[in-house]
């Protein structure tokens, strides 16, 4: 766990936020680069933003001109011809204003739509990349991370990263464009006024920059604490029976309050930060505007400027007001996108620990013999050795049984065969080929593993049984269900194979779930079958039937059975007794019983304790 990337385990309130100051530009530019993969749309968005900003500038000019014309008309001597000319000018300006605002509207629509489209397009790319990456990352990764954390990243953080494009990048671009045009227009009119009018920008920028950094830290904390709260609520609901059984209401509410108050504290901090930034920005803007009015007014009083020009300047300033208000929103979404994007890229950048070798070829089995050659294994290079020097061979049509106390490494052996983890020493071969040299897809197609805890999907029973081969014919699905002794049960359900399994299969008993997963394992007809304690919840009588049916179905295959119930594996061609990752006894059932070792004791114990029933049967 130590040298692996820092993935928070459920991100409890105790874990301090790791804030990398330098991450902000890196993460943001990476999101921006994703958008650059669509250069034409990007360009279109920029051009329409640019034109919209230009169109915005036309109206103030026209209004200022109209006012000056009317004013000139009034202050000078009245000439009837002039009045008609001014009226015509007013009409013309009115139409131009209408045209300018309409144009601006259409261009704003175009740029707004394009930027939203682009952001959704990037979101789609991120979404599919994230999905694929999760499927590629090996069990070692999924062991370390809470599924709720992954779901949060795939939904909320992805949305946070997406919002950068249309919530920050494009608004920021239009803001800069607008400010640049305004500055240009203003400069052409009066440099001093421009300096005064735009003087607020550095102050506002500094205040917002400070806010932006602290906001990012706070956002990260809010997100972490929020996922801790989500986890607390979700677990409470899943374990509601335990909560009730232990009268844990007050305790659970206490847990909730602690988690919720932690979130709230940081939400408050975020709000204060954000609006303090807004306040600083607005104050500097209004100081600029006030100074502009004073300076401009004084110049008009001195006859050095027309009132229309002053109005035009003020109109330009007002034009900036809207986008400037957005700056706070821009910084807010930049802060959010940095922490969200960071959490997302952290996952996307991981290298799967188990992957196809560069020259991997599909597995070409000949006889179907599985061999372990001096296999060592540890989950973590610095951690405990889980398997030491494991060697065995299972030929086609043969069965290997593995038994041992919990933690002795049985399931690890099962998970090594389809290469969910890679061995640390030694090698595993199928017909002499190291399984690391073949493609994962072909290997996993060839190895069928049935786990102890069956995960059923929120789909119909039929879909679940056919999970490994959705194209299988009905007869094969049914045959597999019969082998697993679950067909009669399924046939009796209200919708038979079309019946929907409840969430996480809550409506099926543990034994039924296990039989479903056995049926699922049988459907694709793999060359090597591995049963990892997959009959534990099935009663002894049914299990015997399953075993007999399986014996027929898997007669020509190499089979590995891991079980606690010795009756499940006593017929195996060879039995390994594992303890602390080592093979301590091996042989056939009769040999092991005759030897009088641990296995013999275990057999003795089980015969005494639980298998009276089987004796009776």
């Amino acid at each position, binding site marked *: 766990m130590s040298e692996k990337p820092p993935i928070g385990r459920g991100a409890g309130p105790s874990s301090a936020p790791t804030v990398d100051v330098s991450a902000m530009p890196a993460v943001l530019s990476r999101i921006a680069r994703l958008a650059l993969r669509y250069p034409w749309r990007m360009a279109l968005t920029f051009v329409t933003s640019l034109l919209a900003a230009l169109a915005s500038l036309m109206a103030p000019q026209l*209004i200022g001109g109209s006012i000056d014309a*009317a004013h000139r008309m*009034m202050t000078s001597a009245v000439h009837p011809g002039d009045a008609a000319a001014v*009226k015509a000018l*007013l009409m013309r300006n*009115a139409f131009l*204003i209408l045209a*300018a605002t309409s144009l*601006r509207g259409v261009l704003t629509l175009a740029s707004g739509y394009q930027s939203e489209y682009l952001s*959704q397009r990037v979101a789609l790319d991120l979404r599919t990349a994230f999905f694929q990456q999760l499927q590629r990352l090996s*069990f070692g990764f*999924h*062991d370390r991370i809470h599924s709720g954390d992954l779901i949060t990243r*795939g939904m909320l953080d992805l949305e946070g990263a997406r919002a950068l494009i249309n919530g920050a990048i494009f608004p920021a671009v239009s803001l800069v464009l607008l400010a640049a045009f305004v500055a240009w227009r203003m400069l052409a009119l009066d440099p001093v006024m421009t300096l005064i009018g735009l003087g607020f920008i550095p102050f506002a920028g500094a205040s917002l920059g400070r806010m932006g950094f602290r906001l990012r830290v706070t956002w990260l904390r809010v997100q972490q604490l929020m996922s801790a709260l989500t*986890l607390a609520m979700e677990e*409470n*609901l*899943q*374990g509601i029976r335990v*909560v*009730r*059984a*232990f*009268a844990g*209401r*007050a*305790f*659970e*509410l206490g847990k909730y309050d602690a988690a919720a108050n932690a979130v709230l504290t940081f939400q*408050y901090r975020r709000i204060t930060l954000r609006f303090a930034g807004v*306040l600083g920005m607005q104050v500097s803007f*209004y100081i600029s505007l006030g100074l502009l*009015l004073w300076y401009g007014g004084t110049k*008009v*009083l001195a006859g050095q400027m027309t009132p229309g020009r002053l109005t035009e300047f003020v109109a330009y300033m*007002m034009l900036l007001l809207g986008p400037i208000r957005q700056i706070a929103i821009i910084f807010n979404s930049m802060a959010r996108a940095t922490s969200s994007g960071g959490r997302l890229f952290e996952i996307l950048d991981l290298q799967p620990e188990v992957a196809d070798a560069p020259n991997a070829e599909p597995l070409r089995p000949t006889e179907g013999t599985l061999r372990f050659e001096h296999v060592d294994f540890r989950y973590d290079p610095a*951690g*405990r050795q889980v398997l030491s020097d494991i060697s065995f061979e299972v030929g086609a049509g043969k069965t290997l049984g593995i038994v041992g106390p*919990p933690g002795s490494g049985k399931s690890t052996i099962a998970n090594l065969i389809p290469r*969910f983890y890679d061995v640390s020493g030694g090698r595993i071969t199928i017909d002499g080929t190291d399984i690391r040299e073949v493609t994962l897809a072909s290997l*996993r197609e060839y190895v069928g593993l049935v786990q102890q805890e069956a995960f059923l*999907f*929120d789909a119909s029973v*039929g879909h679940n049984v*056919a*999970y*490994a081969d*959705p*194209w299988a014919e009905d007869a094969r699905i049914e045959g597999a269900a019969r082998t697993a002794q679950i067909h009669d049960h399924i046939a009796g*359900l209200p919708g038979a194979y079309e*019946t929907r399994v*409840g*969430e996480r299969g809550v409506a099926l008993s543990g034994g039924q779930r296990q039989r479903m997963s056995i049926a699922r394992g049988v459907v694709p007809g793999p060359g090597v079958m591995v049963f990892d304690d997959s009959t*534990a*919840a099935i*009663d002894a009588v049914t299990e015997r039937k399953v075993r007999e049916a399986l014996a027929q179905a898997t007669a020509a295959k190499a089979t590995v059975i891991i079980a606690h119930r010795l009756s499940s594996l006593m017929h195996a061609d060879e039995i390994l007794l594992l303890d602390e990752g080592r093979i301590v006894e091996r042989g056939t059932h009769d040999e092991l019983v005759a030897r009088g070792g641990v296995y013999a004791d275990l057999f003795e114990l089980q015969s005494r*304790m*639980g298998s009276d*029933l089987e004796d*009776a049967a």
Partner: protein
Amino acid sequence: MSEAAAAPKRAPRASLGSPEGDDVFGAFDPRVARRFLAYLKPHRRSFIIAQVAVLFSAAGQLSMPLVIGWVTQSVIAHDVGRFHLALAAFAVAAAAFAAMFFLEEWLSQRLANRVIFDVRRHMFAHFQDISLSFMDKTHVGRLMSRLQGDVNSLQEFLENTTGAVGDFVQLIGIAVILVAIDVKLGLLTLTVLPALIGLRAIWLPYSKVAFRLARDASSTANSALAENINGVRTVQETRREALNFQLYAEKAQENFRAQAHAAWISQIMIPTVDILTGVALGIVVVVGGSEVLNSHLSVGVMVAFVFYVQKFFDPVRMLSMQYTIMQRAMAAAHRIFEVLDVPVTIADRPDARVLAVEAPTVEFRHVTFGYDPARPILHDVSFQVRPREVVALVGPTGSGKTSIISLTHRFYDVDQGQVLVGGVDVRDVSLDSLGRTIGMVLQEPFLFTGTIEENIRYNTEGASLETIVAAARAVSAHDFIMRLPEGYQTPLGQRGRNLSMGQRQLISFARALVADPQVLILDEATANIDSFTEQAIQKALKVLFAGRTCMVIAHRLATIRDADRIVVLQAGRILEQGSHDELMATDGLYRHLYTSAHASFDDEAVAATGDAEFATRT
């Protein structure tokens, strides 16, 4: 993939995720709004201050063009005194606006977050109280979407609502000012308003459809993602990566299309508003300009007019955004109150006593009960568990064993008869004291995220580490715990994934032992636990049972034989009771079950009953 090539015509038997299909939009409902206001009550003061601040900031913003108009007018009139006065007014208006805006937003956003947490807590607390049958019927994912998604919709609404009040005040204010400055020009300018309202009315139904589609598409894609994450091991085992990716990519594509369409629909109003702004400005320039020429209007007033008209459409735009948010919030609030309205059927009576009995009895007196009263599961069940006696409940699935233990803990109330603990009807004692008297170990041990120590302590907050270690020793869990990398401080993986089933069971035993209840109810695991742990469990059970009144749903012969008495149930009735030897001496169901080939006392015995249960719960 290769299968696809082999049999291209056949559609795969595959799906991924399932959408929620909730209503996204709700109409404004004053009752919902009123109920919602109740959450604001405790925070009245900041709410009122925020609203007052809104009025001031709106007034500050409203006065701005007027003040700028004064400035222009005073310089045109060459009145230096008035010019300075107008500048001072500007400073005051700007300062008031900035300060009030800060106060309004700061207060209302804090308030929004506070209220949201109150609502969420209320709902969460309600989930702790409502009947388990509701909780059983409802997927955890659905409950979570109430607690998260719906609450977030409300938050969005609340955070914006103060701003919306400000926008509304501004809208009215501007209209009034326009008419006040110049009746004719004002009214003329306002004629664009009906046009806007009409266009919006046309637009609204389209937008509703588009937004609904967008939300549905996104919830479909998200549910597919969540399912694939939860089942990722199975996905990799069965090499479904390619097919699932294809299924997901379709949903993600669909989501993309729906979002882009919704964006188009929502953006289309922007040019509409802009064109209408242009029309209004044109009217001001032509009509206002002419009036200036006729000296009916001063230039300053016309300047103010121009600014007001430009400002007029900002609140209009904001308010139409608010409208969508409001509708979403209404639908969310509806669903939230729906949950809060699920009645709490099991609650303390006002005069509930505290149950405190040493070595209590447990007694069922003529109990009839069904989750659906029309179809009782228990029929007139009577039996007694004497102090410190161990009673095993035995019988096929559907015989009512689970109902009996649920009733003892008062997860449900009986329809007829009485359940007594320590001679007192469970309905007359406080739930908390009942819960502390009765300890329960469930069939499937549930472990929380946290360390082993925290899981064993659970809510026995006073328990020291020594107590916890002693309990773990007593149930033979100490050794394997010490072998874990960080001993008692080892964090458990999701739901204790890093432990074996048997080990999880032992931890849940230790948890029960630390809670030290007078009455112990145990639902024995059906799963075949490894012999090594099995031995430990059998030993642990003896420790757990010692000195307590115990009721066990037993599957193991060892457990059944060790019980003082066995109660045999079938179809909700007690068939026979007595010790193992007594029951073996009679020719009843027990002896039959014990000797027959189907003699496992678990769910496989009566498949038909199991099926019925399956049907009602999916």
